[in-house]
């Protein structure tokens, strides 16, 4: 049962092939047997999952079932879940039972989904390898010595390992697309503002975006149908109609113009990787798409701009973690300053502390213009690159990562080297555009992802293009060899 997609489970439940309780139990058993080697879950909410599953079965029996009734999934541990531990991968929140549900969580609960628990992640979503979690690193199901990517490494690994057919995730600089690529699953980061951020613990508010990790584009569309939409509790949420994302999956892509950015196919992309991505593009050409070379000239500035903006925002966002109202508090603080410094010093890991310090420095008196303001100006230049490009093309494609999954520990000594991992993904967050990673090949038996970049609110087109590719190829059906 564990390799079924959301769409298949939804159909099976409707057909009565098995009950929600049966598949929930089956997956919980799989998690308890196999996750000790993967470490994708921080918290398994077995009891709650079973009661949700029973309720779903009862609802179905009563004739009240929709597409999601009884379908199992899990949440990245960045989404607040009422009464359930919500750690954000941090010691700081290792005792934080959120007193409310995130809007995304409420939506899945209301849709009748069954949540198996909370998924591992880089601490406060800062990282590209899931080695920054207080709960330990996550292993890549394709090769347990390798990283699953990050920060949504638990979500990607859990789907790849067949623990859940779909998981929520978040993407601030590539945190959905990069782990999806490294784990051979499908990851969608929608347009900024498409999904509510309420109850999603903030890393960098103007970049953070919730999204999905699934096996297929079709499943991503099904998750989007639940998650997307306006939320009055989030000022940055966009009040705009939500289409039925499953309705346009099969549209023809004949005549679609694909832009290939010159800057994404240079030396920093190995020949092997290039080949896989080029093969995928060729597949699209076979389906009648046209290809056009484009330029995104400010691509090389995305990482520097990001590492001013994201740390600056996070330095303020994480100030509320002060040991006063919730979370970790140090033993016997001698005064209020001691309480702050030690609680935060003990509660945060190295990478989080580094980013808070970079942000505090960039915003400090005398440096604001040189760093923050400058980065915001560059951010506009980067966005303008895309706006110009989308005048000529319908969709942009390229690699997700420069290499397949790397070995654990390989990039931990130098933070900057780790940052470069996000070179192809980070610009979209700065621009606010939607992006998707679709399995498109393998290098040394490790999955490779194809990145699809859409115009603002063009998620339906990405899902359509992803689905058509998955109808023509079987990369998304490959199962990990390491588990």
């Amino acid at each position: 049962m564990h390799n079924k997609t959301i769409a298949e489970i939804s159909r099976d439940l409707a057909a009565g092939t098995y009950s929600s309780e049966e598949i929930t139990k089956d997956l919980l058993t799989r998690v308890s047997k196999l996750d000790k080697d993967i470490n994708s879950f921080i918290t398994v909410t077995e009891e709650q999952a079973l009661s949700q599953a029973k309720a779903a079965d009862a609802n179905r029996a009563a004739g009240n079932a929709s597409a999601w009734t009884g379908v199992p999934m899990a949440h990245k541990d960045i989404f607040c879940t009422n009464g359930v531990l919500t750690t954000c991968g941090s010691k700081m929140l290792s005792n934080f039972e959120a007193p409310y549900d995130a809007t995304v969580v409420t939506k899945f609960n209301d849709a009748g989904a069954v949540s198996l628990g909370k998924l591992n992640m880089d601490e406060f979503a800062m990282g590209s390898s899931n080695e920054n979690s207080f709960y330990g690193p996550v292993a890549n199901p394709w090769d347990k010595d390798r990283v699953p990517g990050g920060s949504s490494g638990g979500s990607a690994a859990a789907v790849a390992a067949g623990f859940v057919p779909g998981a929520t995730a978040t993407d601030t600089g590539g945190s959905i697309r990069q782990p999806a690529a490294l784990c051979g699953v499908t990851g969608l980061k929608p347009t900024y503002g498409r999904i509510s951020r309420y109850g999603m613990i903030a890393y960098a508010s103007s970049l953070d975006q919730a999204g999905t990790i699934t096996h297929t584009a079709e499943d991503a569309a099904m998750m989007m149908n639940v998650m997307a939409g306006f939320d009055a509790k989030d000022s940055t949420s966009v009040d705009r109609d939500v289409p039925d994302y499953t309705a346009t999956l099969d549209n023809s892509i004949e005549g679609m113009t694909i832009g290939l950015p010159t800057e994404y196919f240079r030396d920093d992309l190995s020949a092997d990787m290039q080949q896989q991505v080029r093969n995928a593009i060729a597949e699209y050409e076979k389906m009648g798409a046209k290809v056009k070379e484009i330029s995104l000239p400010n691509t090389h500035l995305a990482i520097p701009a990001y590492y001013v903006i994201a740390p600056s925002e996070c330095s303020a966002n994480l100030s509320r973690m002060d040991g006063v109202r919730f979370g970790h508090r140090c033993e016997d603080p001698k005064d209020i300053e001691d309480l702050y410094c030690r609680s935060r010093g003990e509660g945060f890991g190295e990478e989080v502390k580094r980013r808070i310090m970079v942000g505090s420095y960039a915003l400090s008196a005398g440096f604001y213009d040189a760093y923050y303001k400058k980065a915001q100006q560059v951010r506009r230049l980067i966005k303008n690159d895309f706006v110009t490009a989308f005048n000529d093309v319908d969709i942009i494609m390229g690699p997700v990562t420069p290499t397949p999954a790397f070995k654990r520990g390989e990039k931990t000594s130098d933070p900057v080297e780790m940052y470069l991992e996000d070179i192809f993904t980070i610009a979209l967050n700065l621009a606010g555009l939607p992006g998707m990673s679709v399995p498109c090949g393998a290098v040394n038996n490790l999955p490779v992802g194809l990145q699809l970049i859409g115009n603002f609110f063009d998620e339906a087109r990405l899902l359509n293009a992803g689905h058509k590719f998955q109808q023509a190829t079987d990369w998304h059906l490959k199962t990990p060899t390491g588990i």
Partner: protein
Amino acid sequence: MEWEVVIGLEIHAQLATKSKIFSGSSTAYGAEANTQANAVDLGLPGVLPVFNEEALRMAVKFGLAIDAEIGMKSVFDRKNYFYPDSPKGYQTTQLHHPIVGMGHIDIELENGESRRINVTRAHLEEDAGKSVHEGFDGMSGIDLNRAGTPLVEIVSEPEMRTAKEAAAYFKKMHSIVTYLGICDGDLSQGSMRCDCNVSLRPKGQEEFGTRTEIKNVNSFRNVERAINTEIQRQMDILEDGGSITQETRLYDADKDETRSMRSKEVENDYRYFPCPDLLPIIIDQEYVDAIKATLPELPDAKKARFQSEHGLSLMDAAVLSSDRQLADYFEAAANISGDYKIAANWVMGDVSAALNRLEISISELPVTAEQLGRLLSLIKDNTLNNGGAKEVFNALLDGKGTDGAEGVDALVDSLGLKQVSDTGAIEEIVAQVLADNPKLVEGYLATPEEKRGKAMGPFIGLTRKAAKGVNPQVVMDVLKQKLSEL
């Protein structure tokens, strides 16, 4: 050396919204600790702010009232600092793009002149919670009910030169925000608080001296006292050849001294940047014009109108227009009676005395404007004399009588205060008084002509004693007549 004092004020006024600036929690004062602090106010992980439209409307209203530029695009910034009453570790405020830009108000000086003080800006921000230091066994208790209450911070230009001017400015701002109904103005509950920036410079010097900031002064009187104390402290230091340290100070009203706030000595670097959880606030002229149309008559306009329309003196008009409710009360009573001078005297006299004695506000006064108006009408048509009117007024204060103008009439009747103005009846009483007091009459007649006016006094007293509520003027006339006939 002769010194010039330079004073600028930053006034924090809590906006009278029902809910908080970024959450749906109540702003009501006096609730049990942390019962009005929701997830947003507590700064829990994952929560987000959404801006209260009423706070915006009130801030724009204020800007229009002080003739200021309105920020058609204003932006919220985060001001970063750690303090336990600041739950997010930053305060959401407006630095570069405030909702209200340069404006001005006029203050009245004691010599009757007025002076224009420019207002640099006014911006929207959230209030902090409160720390309680007593009763927690050496710890501090944090109450976040107040956290997130909307504030406008009103920043003046450093244009005041005396503590009196500063107090007058604070009073005038108080008057304006309460007129507008955007702040309840309750100083004892901290609805308005004032930070005073004070510096001295040698007279004639252009450059400002080093300033200190006295935090959170919360009464008109203390603004004046605190500034005077601080001026004296700085002058003593400067006269001794010392220099002033730029710092934040607290005013201790009991000791009448300011002292340095050590906790704020650590150099702050607030690392302001635009709040990424909130978007720019964009308003248009139509929005501003609609608010403009709702502006009430403001204190200065009312003062001028009381002088021109009702013939009040500048002083009376200034006193009566300083508080909107008082002004409304006065005008309602005066309109009923048709006599603005008597009404002014009563409101500034007996009414104000009663408010002070009972320590209540005009809205809590048991005597309604309608009742006072009726009372004044009865004085005017000679139904009541002044003494009788006071008796009725005091009875109403004591809660006697029924509601409305009828209540006044009923009291006049039941207390037997209706003035007798019927000459025939008074003639009878006077005749009786004269007949009963031959000795007094004798004494009167022995009094030289020029002193007889005064000698008439005892007869007036006796007549009024014999019949309560006689019209004194008629008594006087009849007495004069009768005595002259003797």
